[in-house]
């Protein structure tokens, strides 16, 4: 007889299996004494752990802990009396109508910024299969999830030019050699 994996038996014992798997494993466990014993052992261990977590440690002396807590509270009250009468704090800036006004102004600023700075509606779904574009590190042509990019490494100044008939050009200066390189990608 082929037995289920031990991990499945553990999950079955703790009731964490999905319904279909639970059905299959349950059918086997009802007919197999060995696996039933494993499931009982896992379930028993789980119960013991849960019970143990609810009990205080044996070495904890509850009465001593309560006495320490009372002493700390008295100490805090005494310190408060030495410091003098408690002054009523001034009306908080956060009380009354002010928070609502501030929140409204903040929302207005955020909304205005979003309206002014949002990317304009993208003219997406371009009916084409090949796209030329600039990226942070170079210029690239993309086609059906594939791409070829020419990279301008460590270039400080990159001059871009687009050819409206289907090309993109990046000119950059190699800071090491002082030489100019021109990259071109074409969709023509």
């Amino acid at each position: 007889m082929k037995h289920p994996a031990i991990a499945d038996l553990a999950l079955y014992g703790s009731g964490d299996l999905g319904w279909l798997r639970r059905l299959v494993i349950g059918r086997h466990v009802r007919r197999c004494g060995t696996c039933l014993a494993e499931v009982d052992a896992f379930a028993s261990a789980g119960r013991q752990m849960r019970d143990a977590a609810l009990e205080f440690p044996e070495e904890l002396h509850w009465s001593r802990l309560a006495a320490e807590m009372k002493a700390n509270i008295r100490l805090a009250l005494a310190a408060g009396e030495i410091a003098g009468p408690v002054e009523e704090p001034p009306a908080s800036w956060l009380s009354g109508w002010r928070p609502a006004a501030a929140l409204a102004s903040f929302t207005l600023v955020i909304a205005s910024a979003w309206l002014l700075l949002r990317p304009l509606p993208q003219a997406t779904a371009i009916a084409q299969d090949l796209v030329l574009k600039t990226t942070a590190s170079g210029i690239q042509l993309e086609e059906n999830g594939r791409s070829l990019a020419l990279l301008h490494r460590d270039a400080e100044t990159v001059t871009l030019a687009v050819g409206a008939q289907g090309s993109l050009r990046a000119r950059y200066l190699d800071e090491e050699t002082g030489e100019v390189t021109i990259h071109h990608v074409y969709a023509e």
Partner: protein
Amino acid sequence: MSTPSKFALLLLAVSAAWAQAPARSSIKVNLPPDAPISLLEADWGESSASERGSALVLNLHTSLSLRNSGQRRIRGITWMVLSQEVTPGGRASVTKPSLDIGPNETFPVRLDLRLLRPLGPAAAGPLVEVSLDGILFEDLSFYGPNKLDSRRVMMALELEARRDRRYFQQVLAAQGIEGLKRECAASLARQAETPRLDVQLARGRSTAAESERRVQFAFLQFPGAPVELVSGVADVSGPEARAPRLEVLNRTNRAVKHLEIGWILRDARGREFSAGSIPAKASVAPGRKSDVLGDTSLRFAEPKGAALAIDAITGFVSQVEFADGSLWIPTRDALADPRLQRTLAPSAEEQRLTSIYRRKGPAALVDELKKFQ
């Protein structure tokens, strides 16, 4: 050691070996047998491969060591980069302009690529093929298959380089080293302040989520430009400009075969950005008009990610190639227009020369200028 630990160690070793392995077999360098350069060495140093989700990421970093095996000085070189398995419809290129490589001299070309493709069996053969597309020499002669129109691109860069070197030499002759320092400082300040845009370009129509409007181009006309911009429109929707269409007039008695129209975008806050150009293979007969069309959607954003609300577009002719292969580029006087000074990046050569000044000082720049006199 336990069995799982041994297995994990074995996996680690295999993946580390695999991560180091891809470079050499992933790139193939093609050089025609009669090429006036030879490949001495390819260093694959920091190349690596890794999995990201369900994709394979290949970072290929190589430095090709090349020798000028011809008799002419090399001024520019372009390599074509193809990855048929990763992006069958796309091509890329790496161009090194403003070179000065004499016969038998060696020079490096760095290639830094990143490929991303779904995990799975790779096709037979290299992932990337790097092929020589063209070499431009000191006498403006050209070698190579020119599949990417490298001749025109490198010729324009070389003409710009000559124009700007001549300008700096004139400043040095007329105002001395102090004048040269002032000129470099002003150029570096402009370079630092030139606004930059991020861009995404896609072919074909877009289904814009907001209403589209037609924006008329304004024009900056340069005196002496061989081509005049007559009219132009683009469909604009928020940060996206689509299908620019321009009408141009050939003012000369020579046929034009290619032209580039630079454009400057103004956003809703009045800020202006250089947005590149509309290069167009356009056959324009002498004295005739022709249309220049772009069938693409361009979406612009500031580098911080905020989309640009396009309000107006200004166009100017930035390059003209005639049927006989000669080229026209704007003069420095034409580019002194304040709007262009604010928005347009300097030429590659001006960037290189001012970089020499910044890194090595005015004496090194004077030496560099003298090399080309």
